[in-house]
């Protein structure tokens, strides 16, 4: 086990931000933290990285307690935070050089990482000249260079264009395959689906739902319907007893989870109410669906 978080409580300004959180991160596992703003995702990452300390409970990283063996525990971690942590007067290379020296990484690896992320053009510029996307790339380069046992990432996709997001996804999976476990927070639920082995849904400082890739990707009796007038569907189908769950997605589609795999009654009812089905297919249950069912539409 790489990380063990047990009975964590944290109050900030007398407000309960983290309220009895328990979870573990296994070797080579990617765990995503999902939740609305203020749910406690960043606070949780800061607790794990020892930037703040729990009021109660314990955190162990590779069996090391960061509050007792801070330096040893932090040697196993790399934290990809928001871009404000970068020094504006230093170059990207300065940052990488420092990390390489502190972590005793051969300098030749810096160039490999630079090439891999294709950041040669601006690595010798001062960070103050970087765009948000460039800063995110540099933060990623720092994380890649460290090759930690546990990589913490706070909203890593912020500021990335689609091709960079794809690259990040590949790199996360690559890191996992090379032996790094990852705990990351994200708002971009579609991306979470593609990389996470496990998703922790957080609300008001508590884990309210935990789904592993096995149980959320192949949920039975789940259908995705593209229909006209999706806004009316909840009223029309409210008396339908075969429906376990109905979620109206942001894209206008509806996700139906049925008790029995029989759609005939539902199709008939929609047809009778002049709602036409444009497309229908059986689907995996997506994070977005779970998210909506937990936090509401």
């Amino acid at each position: 086990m790489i990380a063990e978080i047990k009975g964590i409580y944290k109050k900030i300004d007398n407000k309960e931000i983290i309220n009895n959180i328990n979870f573990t991160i296994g070797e080579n596992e990617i765990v995503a933290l999902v939740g609305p703003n203020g749910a406690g995702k960043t606070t949780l990452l800061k607790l794990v990285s020892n930037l703040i300390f729990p009021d109660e409970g314990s955190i162990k990283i590779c069996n090391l307690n960061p509050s007792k063996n801070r330096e040893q525990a932090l040697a196993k971690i790399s934290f990809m935070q928001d871009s404000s942590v970068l020094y504006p007067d230093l170059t990207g290379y300065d940052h990488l050089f420092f990390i390489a020296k502190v972590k005793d990484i051969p300098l030749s690896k810096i160039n490999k990482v630079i090439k891999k992320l294709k950041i040669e053009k601006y690595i010798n510029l001062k960070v103050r000249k970087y765009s948000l996307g460039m800063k995110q790339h540099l933060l990623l380069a720092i994380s890649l260079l460290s090759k930690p046992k546990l990589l913490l990432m706070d909203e890593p996709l912020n500021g990335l264009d689609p091709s960079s997001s794809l690259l990040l996804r590949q790199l996360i999976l690559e890191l996992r395959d090379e032996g790094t476990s990852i705990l990351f927070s994200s708002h971009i639920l579609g991306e979470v689906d593609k990389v996470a082995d496990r998703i922790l849904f957080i609300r008001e400082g508590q884990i309210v739902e935990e789904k592993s890739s096995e149980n959320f990707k192949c949920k039975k009796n789940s259908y995705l319907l593209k229909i006209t007038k999706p806004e009316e569907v909840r009223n029309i189908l409210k008396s339908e007893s075969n429906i376990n769950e109905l979620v109206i997605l942001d894209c206008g589609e509806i996700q139906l989870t049925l008790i029995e795999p029989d759609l005939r009654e539902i199709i008939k009812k929609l047809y009778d109410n002049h709602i036409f089905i444009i497309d229908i297919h059986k689907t995996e249950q997506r994070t977005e669906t779970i998210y909506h069912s937990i936090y509401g539409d």
Partner: protein
Amino acid sequence: MNKHLLFLEYKKIFKRKKNIIVICLIIVISLGILILNNLLNKKYESNKAENYKYQISSINEAISQIPREDRNRDSVKKIEEEYKNEIKLLEQQANAFEKGNWKEELKAQIIFDENQLKNLKTGKAIGGEPIQLIESRIGINKQLIKKNIKPINESSATQGIYFLRNILNILFGFMGVIIMIFIVGDILAIEFDKGTINFLFTQSISREKIVNTKSLVAFSFSIFSIFTVSLFAFLIGSLFWGTGSFDYPISIQREGTSTFINIGQYLTLSGLLFIFVLIFTISVAILISVITSSSMIAISLTVILSSMLYLSVNKYGYFAIFAQYLPFSYFNTFNIIDGTLASNLKNNNISLKLGIEVLLVSSLLLHFISLRLIRKKEVF
């Protein structure tokens, strides 16, 4: 100490525009002072002959105003004789000055001052310059003749070592403390402000090491800044007007008596004390930074606190009885070395040795508190 962190911190501090701008500004101001000093010196030299003439004519006028009927009285005769002696000495000084014979000029000045001193001590004269000042001037003038060093107008001297003394008179004092607080006082707090402290605090380097490294870098950068400005002042002064004499005597007041050290020793001892003043100032700034996490508050609070305590001791003479135990008493290092503060506060316990001890102990205490606090500091 982590050498990689040290290297990073040096890079950061040397790349901060604010720091380089302030150093350049001090250099430009120094240059301005040098030009001003040169103008003042020229004016001083051109006025000197006039001054002698004016003093002679004033005394002559005083003699002419003695009523005729009183001139035959013995006591008046004596005063008239003394006046005439003064005129003679002043004429000697004026002649020597015109010929460029500074030794003769000084010799006449010494006799003039000795007479004045005698009159003050016997009660024949009252008021005028303080006895200590006249004694000190006599001593310095004697030393100058003995060492064959041409006298200078101390406040506006332009030769290398003398100009350096004038610049360090600013830097090794309260103004220097304020400048250094402005340059390095926020070395830690700015990281909390900008959020960059998270970058360091998530590395496998202890927080205590981070604070120690920052303190060391702040201290060494302050020394570097002062050294750069000093070197510039010395070189620019030496280039145009020569180096001056490192043996130039400086009067030290200690328990009512004057002793002398040379300007080289004077600057070295002041510099030594200022090193401890810097260590103390940085310790205060670091502690305030740890507590407040804000560069603006750290700088302003350090400046306000330092100003209040420095002025209350040095300017208003509060806490005079135990001023020797207050670190802020030692901020004006020249006043400590030449005994001015001890003499002003009538507290002879104020000394270089005790100053170093007080500043060192206070700094260690503050630094220890900072290290304790940083361990428990949360970064939200």
